[in-house]
């Protein structure tokens, strides 16, 4: 009888531990069980990625559709090459869409926002988004305000925003 209570309480303990792990997975990390997590790869070249990091989200119309996998410097063009994995079920991004590096809130993290183009051809695995808009670097903006040059030389300073 004594051994039986020990066994029951150990069983309950094991169940409680596994239950806590399942709760951590589902409730805390938001792991969805039947998520279709196959992806395809897109590239985008930016003049300046600012403080964009790996694992940053890629959003379209505010909905997350993928993640940034890696950022590297293209040695020939001196541009930052961002490698993104996009969910396979979003397979209809028009080829004239543009990618911009946006900030969530004033101090939030950087993410890539994709604005839809009008073309009937869609991006396929391994293609590059040509129309890009760099991150707004706060220091550059402040520098321009200090020099009073905002709005005067937009053509020259295009690369910084």
């Amino acid at each position, binding site marked *: 009888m004594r051994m039986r209570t020990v066994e029951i309480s150990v069983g309950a*303990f094991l169940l409680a*531990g*596994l239950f*806590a792990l399942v709760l*951590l997975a589902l409730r*805390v*990390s*938001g792991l969805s069980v039947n998520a279709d997590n196959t992806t395809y790869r897109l590239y985008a070249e930016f003049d300046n990625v600012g403080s964009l990091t790996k*694992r940053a989200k890629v959003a379209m119309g505010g909905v997350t559709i993928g993640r940034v996998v890696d950022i590297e410097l293209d040695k020939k063009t001196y541009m930052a090459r961002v490698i993104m994995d996009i969910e396979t079920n979003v397979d209809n991004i028009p080829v004239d869409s543009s990618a911009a590096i946006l900030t969530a809130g004033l*101090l939030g993290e950087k993410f890539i926002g994709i604005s839809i183009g009008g073309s009937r051809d869609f991006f396929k695995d391994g293609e590059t988004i040509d129309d890009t808009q760099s991150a707004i670097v706060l220091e550059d903006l402040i520098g321009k305000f200090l020099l009073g040059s905002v709005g005067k030389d937009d053509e020259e300073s295009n690369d910084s925003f």
Partner: protein
Amino acid sequence: MSRLLDHVATLGRSGLEVLQAMGRATIMLGMALFGRSSSHGSMPSLVVKQIYAVGVLSLIIITVSGVFIGMVLGLQGYNILVRYGTEQSVGQMVALSLVRELGPVVTALLFAGRAGSALTAEIGLMKATEQLSSLEMIGVDPLKRIIAPRFWAGFISMPLLACIFSMVGIFGGSMVGVDWLGIYEGSFWGNMQQSVDFWNDVVDGLIKSVMFGFVVTWIAVFQGYDAVPTSEGISRATTRTVVYASLAVLGLDFILTAVMFGDL
């Protein structure tokens, strides 16, 4: 000159002693886990009994400390974040710090104090009262019969306790944040789910707790097995278990954190 050499010799002797102890600990563990099996009773029921002693009886201290740590994190996080108007991030702060660090580490420290010291004292007393040598006399390997079930029990219980600790702590944090301080529930849990990643945060925390369980139980069992069989020796061994296990957990935590999260 000769006094200086004496000091060098003392240093060398203690270094050799540490190395010898590590060697004995490794041999003990290897013999207990992989040694040739003899008649040692039914292993599963022995492990179940030990899981009861090590895991189930630690549940109360683990849940109570988990709730309080979660509540304190919620309160402190709220007080700082509300100044910047970002009190919705309390959820992610509580969850990340619990799942990545506090869950495994605090559980391991409590586990060393609650279960590790008990293991050492029990095995040490068995040695002092010559129960271990009596077992050997009747042809039962004490490493298999006494050490191995206790080791497995600690190794299994520790990750489960850490999961329970983290989960209870997060509920404690939500109790303070959502129910008491009035953070909107949706953004509390939503921000948390957005920033906590299953593989990079939950599973890494789980790996940490598995490693801590291994180290703490190993130290506890070895200190008991290696204790000087006197009452003073057992008390020293128990102290050493708690001190070494705590230091090992904290040091190992830094290394694991550097490996897991260092490149992010």
